[in-house]
């Protein structure tokens, strides 16, 4: 046991050191931040999809309140920082549009069907959950195709990004988060109106890591772009012609397609999340000895389609639960709030679809 845990720690340190030396210190730091995300999300069982389900089905707001707390903690630091260091740092701004809102709705639905979001899919894959493993490649494909078609969808109508900035933006964001928290507490079961210490600690750690991500990379924590980029590079290598896509033929995309994924911020943190979640699961005494459940064929098909929908819709919605909801709101983007409302609406349908699609109660 001690040997295994020692090996895991050593492997993580070696990985970060290798990337720092052979790629660059910034990239090593970002991998370390990603590992931290994976450790916190899996180690403290902090997620996004599960808490939404708990609120919808059991009126238990603890996890969702934890998410709002983490967002608030990031906003308190990030919004003033962005106001004074806007030349170096950028927020998670996204335009609000018809396609964006609809995509967020379908993302929320798929997120509840698979009980995994952007970060959750990575954590699930790393911790040996077969739903995460099967849906992850299709998430990446969906993200690629979502980007491929992005300009067509935004052409249906969208507003320019609207951003809350500075101290007034911070105050409005915190007041709005407090209002949502208040509504959740009012709707909650009376015996479930407290925040467990585990969630408070996880929210605080997650906020610290998200701020580190912002300071080191100059951009907020995101998931989806990195997955789409990996799929794009693989498909391009396999001979797929990307010239039909406005997105993948822009100068910045062409540059990134020719660079290593080890120099891409979201790819690095994504890799870190998978390794971090694996590390926690392997560290636990019985972490990976859980038997795999037997799923019906319709459940396997749902994992494939659900994964694709998550990736495709996250791209159209300008982020997933991390890029749009967490980072969007924390850095003052109005699209984060629209994303939250639309995705939460979709989640109500998703929780009802999950048992129908055979993803619940499999043993």
């Amino acid at each position, binding site marked *: 046991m001690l040997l295994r845990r020692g090996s895991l720690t050593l492997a993580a340190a070696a990985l970060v050191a290798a990337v720092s030396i052979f790629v660059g210190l910034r990239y090593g730091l970002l991998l370390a931040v990603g590992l931290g995300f994976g450790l916190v999300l899996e180690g403290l069982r902090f997620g996004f999809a599960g808490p939404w389900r708990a609120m919808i089905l059991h009126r238990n707001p603890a996890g969702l309140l934890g998410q709002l707390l983490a967002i608030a903690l990031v906003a308190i630091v990030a919004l003033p920082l962005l106001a004074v*260091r806007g*030349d*170096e740092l950028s927020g998670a701004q*996204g335009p609000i549009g018809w396609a964006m809102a609809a995509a967020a709705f379908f993302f929320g639905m798929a997120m509840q069907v698979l009980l995994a979001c952007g970060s959750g899919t990575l954590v699930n894959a*790393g911790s040996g959950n077969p739903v995460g493993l099967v849906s992850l490649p299709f998430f990446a494909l969906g993200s690629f195709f979502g980007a491929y078609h992005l300009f067509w969808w935004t052409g249906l109508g969208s507003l320019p990004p609207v951003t809350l900035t500075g101290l007034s933006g911070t105050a409005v964001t915190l007041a709005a988060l407090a209002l949502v928290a208040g509504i959740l507490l009012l709707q909650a079961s009376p015996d479930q109106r407290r925040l467990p210490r585990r969630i408070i600690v996880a929210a605080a750690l997650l906020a610290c890591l998200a701020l580190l991500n912002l300071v080191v990379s*100059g951009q907020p924590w995101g998931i989806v772009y990195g997955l789409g980029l990996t799929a794009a590079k693989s498909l391009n290598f396999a001979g797929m012609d990307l010239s039909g896509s406005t997105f993948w033929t822009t100068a910045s995309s062409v540059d990134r397609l020719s660079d290593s994924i080890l120099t891409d*911020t979201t790819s690095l943190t994504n*890799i870190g999340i998978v390794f971090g979640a694996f590390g926690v699961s392997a560290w636990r005494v019985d972490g990976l000895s859980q038997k795999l459940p037997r799923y019906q064929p319709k459940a396997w098909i749902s994992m494939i389609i659900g994964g694709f929908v998550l990736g495709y819709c996250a791209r159209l919605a*300008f982020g997933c639960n991390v*890029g749009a909801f967490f980072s969007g709101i924390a850095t003052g983007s109005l699209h984060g709030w629209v994303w939250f409302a639309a995705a939460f609406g979709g989640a109500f349908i998703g929780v009802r679809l999950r048992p129908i699609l055979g993803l619940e109660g499999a043993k």
Partner: protein
Amino acid sequence: MTRRLTACIAISLVVATLAFDLATESLNPFNAPAPIVLGSGKPGGGAFCGELPG
């Protein structure tokens, strides 16, 4: 079968992706940007989910 199998497959996929990437792209640590964007005087330059390039 246990979760050990699926977790190992996931890690193998990530390692294979990295190996493929390292085999097809060259890395030059001497071209690496400043370790931390904040204070560097330059924007991060990375891509983000909310980005609409053009």
